[in-house]
Structure formats: C-alpha cells, structure tokens
C-alpha cells in the first residue's frame, strides 16, 4: 500500500513539472521502497542469459540452426560484438578496425598451439595478451582524434595489419596459405609433460578435444563470462564516466577528468574481447588466415552491433547471431527449398512467389540483410532491442509511464 502511494508520488514528480511536495523524502531509499534493486535485476538477466545460451541446442532446432559449428559461431561473434559495443555503445567512438584484434588473436592462439601446448588455456590468455598489446598501440595513435577521424585511423591501421600479414610478416603469418598447426611443431610444454596427440590436431582442455558440442559449450561459457563482465562495466562508475565522455567530452575535461586514460583502457578491453573471439575461432578450427582481419570483417561487427542495438547489453549478441544465421542458413536456401515451402499454393502462384523471392535467398542473402539493415536504421535507430522494448511497452498498455527502470540506470 505504502509502496503504491510512493510510486504514485514519484510518477507524478517525474512527469509533472509543477509538482510540489516535500521533495526530501522523494527518492526512495531502503529496501521497503525498492522492491527490486538493479543489482538483483542484473542477476536475473545473467541467469536468464545463461539459460538461453545453454539451451540453444534445443530452441534453435526449429530454425535449423542447432548444430554446434553454427552455434559456436553465434557465441564467438557474440563475444566479438559485445566487446565492440563496450567501446562504441558506451563512448560513441566507432572503431572501423576491430577485425585486426580478431585476426591477431587467432594468430596468437595458433602460435600458442605451435610453440607451447594444444591446451586452450594458454592459447586464450596469449591471444588476449597480444590483442591487448596491439590495442595499446592502435589506441594510443587513433585516440588522438575523435569522430570520423578516429574511425579512419583505426581503419587504416587495421588494413595495415592485414597487408603486413600478407607481406613482410609472412614468416609469422604464413601469408596466403594461412597459419596451421603441424605435427612436427615443437610444442615445448607438451613435450616437457610428455603429452601425445593422436589424430587431427585440435585444441583441447585437459584431454577433451574442442570440437562439436564441447567446442560449443566452451564458447558459450566464455560468452556468459564476457556478458557478465560487460554488464559489470556498464553498471560501474567507470561505465558512467565513459557515457559521460560520449555525452559531453568538453564538460568532462572541465570537471577534472582526463578522458585519455578512460578511452585507452576501454579500447584495450574491447580489443581483448576481440582477441578472445579470435582465439576461439582458432580453437574450434586451428587455422588462422589474414582474411579475418580485412575491413569487411570490421564492417560486419559494426553491422551486428547497430542491427541489434548499440549501447544495449544483449543487442550486439542478437545482431551477431542474426548475421551469422543469414550467412549460414539463409544463404543455403535455393529455389527448390522455396518451392517446397510454398507448395501449399496453387502452382502458378507458387511459381510467381518463388520467382519474386529467389533473388533474396541463396546467393542473394546479402540483399535481404541489406534491406533488413535499412529498415532497422530508418525505423528503429536503437536496433532490434528498441523494437523489442517498444513492443513490450505497447503490450503493457501503451506504456502507462511506469518504466521499470531505476533512477541510476534511467539514462540508458
């Protein structure tokens, strides 16, 4: 009862500018007025996210996507987009060269397999370390500028990495052939412990080879950890500072903050997320090629993030999954698949529908994706997550103004 009254007062206080009450008691503190603090909510979000991710093999069945190779791609690119969004969503700095970190992470992981051990833990750590170091270098240079100039600098530096991988760095990257794990690589740690490898060389965790479902569950577990850390960062004072930098960098400087270390640290964190994703790509398929670093790959992660909803926590993961789904499932549809899908129609109509739709599937999946992207950007600038939010609010009776957001998070 008391709760309801206080909620009413708060609502009125927020919506009505002339509202005058003894304001001191307004912002409710203490447990009796806050039925659910954001911290509790975050735990619900994490538990729900964990269930959704781990249950993918079941609920993706009807969509024809429930096979480990594709699901682990969802998870890996989810991590990539999550990290990209920490930079872009929080600070507004659009990096157009994030694929460099992905590629470097892959190379580092494969080198760890070649030099140290087929165990994936050193591979992951080594990849994140190398990607982090590269992020220090690229960040140090490109963060001298903001806006479009920052984007161009990151793009240029990433393309430089890509071209170096094909030219002078060939001894490290093995050029066009791609870097692969070979039987006669030294693997000093494995040799020291006398670990033998039979069959195809694959990344393994204490004897369990990371292929098929174990591979997927590894990626899923790391995605959940990455999600948790990203959520913590977004909810932290540090995350608020990054939002403040996005909102008004000038005020930030006159408020006593030096934005440079803030930007550089989040750039490094974001690069390490990409390095982790790159390592997982190499773990599930121990081959690293330079094409992973090309600018199209950088563009893809931008697309994923904006499609899902920049600045939201789960949007980029959703965007990554949608794009990978299109790339792998939609592109495999052909005219006969369409024909069977529309077989319930009369023959002439069916032929007509198939003719109309066939440019949009198979080879033409990019066309569909492009149209979807245009529709999203024009009508839902906040991405799919905004669409979900709007639908939710609509279903709850046109919003009723009672946003369940709490005050500190209200500005998201």
């Amino acid at each position, binding site marked *: 009862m008391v709760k309801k009254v206080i909620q009413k007062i708060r609502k009125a206080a927020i919506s009505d500018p002339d509202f005058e009450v003894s304001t001191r008691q307004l912002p409710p503190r203490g447990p009796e007025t806050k039925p659910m603090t954001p911290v509790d909510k975050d735990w619900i979000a994490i538990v729900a996210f964990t269930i959704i991710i781990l249950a993918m093999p079941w609920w993706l069945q009807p969509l024809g996507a429930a096979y480990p190779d594709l699901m682990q791609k969802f998870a890996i690119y989810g991590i990539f987009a999550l990290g990209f969004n920490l930079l872009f969503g929080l600070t507004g700095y659009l990096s157009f060269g994030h694929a460099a970190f992905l590629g470097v992470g892959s190379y580092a992981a494969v080198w760890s397999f070649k030099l140290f051990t087929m165990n994936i833990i050193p591979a992951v750590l080594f990849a994140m370390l190398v990607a982090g170091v590269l992020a220090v270098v690229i960040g140090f240079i490109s963060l001298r500028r903001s806006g479009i100039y920052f984007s161009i600098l990151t793009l240029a530096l990433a393309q430089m990495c890509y071209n170096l991988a094909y030219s002078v760095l060939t001894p490290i990257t093995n050029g066009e052939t791609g870097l692969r794990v070979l039987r006669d690589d030294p693997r000093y740690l494995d040799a020291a412990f006398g670990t033998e490898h039979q069959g195809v060389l694959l990344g393994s965790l204490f004897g369990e080879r990371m292929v098929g479902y174990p591979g997927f569950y590894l990626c899923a577990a790391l995605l959940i950890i990455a999600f948790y850390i990203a959520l913590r960062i977004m909810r932290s004072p540090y995350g608020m500072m990054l939002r403040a930098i996005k909102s008004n960098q000038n005020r930030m400087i006159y408020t006593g903050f030096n934005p440079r270390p803030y930007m550089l640290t989040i750039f490094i964190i974001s690069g390490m997320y990409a390095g982790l994703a790159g390592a997982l790509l190499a773990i599930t398929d121990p081959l690293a090629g330079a094409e992973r670093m090309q600018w199209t790959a950088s563009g893809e992660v931008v697309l994923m993030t904006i499609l899902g909803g920049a600045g939201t926590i789960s949007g980029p993961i959703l965007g990554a999954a949608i794009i990978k789904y299109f790339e792998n499932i939609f592109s495999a549809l052909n005219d006969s698949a369409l024909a069977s899908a529309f077989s319930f129609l009369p023959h002439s109509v069916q032929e007509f529908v198939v003719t109309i739709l066939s440019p949009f599937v198979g080879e033409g999946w990019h066309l569909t994706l492009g149209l979807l992207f245009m529709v999203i950007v024009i009508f839902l600038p906040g991405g799919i997550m905004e669409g979900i939010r709007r639908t939710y609010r609509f279903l709850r009776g046109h919003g009723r103004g009672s946003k369940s957001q709490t005050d*500190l998070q209200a500005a998201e």
Partner: protein
Amino acid sequence: MNNAVLHVSEVQKSFGGLRALTDIELQVEKGKTHAIIGPNGAGKSTLLNVCIGRLPPDSGTVTFDGHLITGRPPYEINQLGVARVFQTPEIFPDLSLLQNVMVPAFAKRDGTFRMSALSSLEKETDLRDEAEKLLEDVGLLQFYAKLASSLSRGDKRRLELAMCLIQHPKLLLLDEPTAGMSRHDTNRTIDLLKQIKERGMTKVIIEHDMHVVFSLADRISVLAQGKIIAEGTPDEVRGSPRVQEAYLGGAH
C-alpha cells in the same frame, strides 16, 4: 594583497589582429565575489577561458592558490579547485540529472582517472546522498531521474551550477549564470550564490544583469575593449564616470 586566490598578471591575448585582452591585472581575494562587467565583446569570456585553461594567453601568467596554472590542462586546473559554469550550459545531456551531478563528485573523490570498472554504481550511496542534496539545493530534485537534455535552458544552468558546487571548488567561475532565467529563478539563484558565499567560496562572475551584480559582488572590475578600465567596490564603480562612458558611449 596576499590574500589573493586568483592572480592574473599582465595577461595578453590576441586573435589574429584583434587584441582581445591587454595587460590584464586581476586579483581576486579569498572568500569574495568578484564581478567582471563590461559591454559585449569586451573580452570577459576570453578572460575566463584563460583562467580555466581553455585558451593559453600570449603572455602573462595566471596563478591560482599558489600554483602557476597557465598552460596546464583544464582537468588539472579543475583538480586544483577551479570549477566553471559556462555561458551555454555544458552538461551531460544523455545522462540523468542524478548522474550528471554524480560524475563531478567522482572527479572530486577519485582524481583525473580511476579504473573502477568492476565496482557498482549502486554502492556509492554517500555520493548519491550528496548529489541529491545538491539537486535539492538548486530545486531540481523532483526531476532526478530525467534526462538532462529534457530540461529547459534555465534548469540546465542550475543543474550545471549543482555540478560545480558538488566539487566544493575553492574558486567558482560563473559566466552569466542567470542568463535565460525568469525573474523568479534569477532571485533563487542569487540566494543560492549568497549561501555559497557564506561557506567561504571565492567566485568570479560575469554578468550583464546589474541587479545580480550589485546584489552579489564585493568588488567589480569593468572591462572594455580588452582593458580593465575601472575596479573597486560596487559603489565606487557605480559612481565612476569612465564606466558610464564605456557603457553609455559618452562623447570624448
């Protein structure tokens, strides 16, 4: 005057061929409110920009609280205890009012940079209490969860004032703090600024509204064409013929 908190000495500043500031000497005493008045284009804002580190002077020095601050980055000057309210409100439009006020509180507590990525904003109840108190002082507490971009211009100004006050600066620079406010809000702001004075905060204020100037200022400097043409107590300045000439454009 050894009691000076801010000491501007022989500052010159030109933009191209235009001399914006010529041989500016200014001493602001601790705990006093020093108003700078003058016609448009006299160089008032330029002078504040030099003090805050936004513009480097061509020559001359600015000393604050014993530190030479000319040439130092703005965030260091702020950390020494100088806060500024801008002519066009500089706030964080995409953050809530509460967050707007909490950000400067963090700067005051944690310095120019702190890696607090894994601590929770919800646990900062002390800063939150303080921020709410400040929002109440400026009369914006009831909007605490709103986005700052939704405020009117006058409210944005008051929010910016709260953002500066939460840092308990030793020196507060105010660039037309009541411009765009209604009479009622202006009077409230004057009351608020008077309260701060009682707390011993030093203020430099640029203002066109003479009602505000004469109700707040202990000393007034009059700036015209980049030069200080008069300085004194409000009564002295009011009586000065040179000031009337500068304002009213009297004949030579």
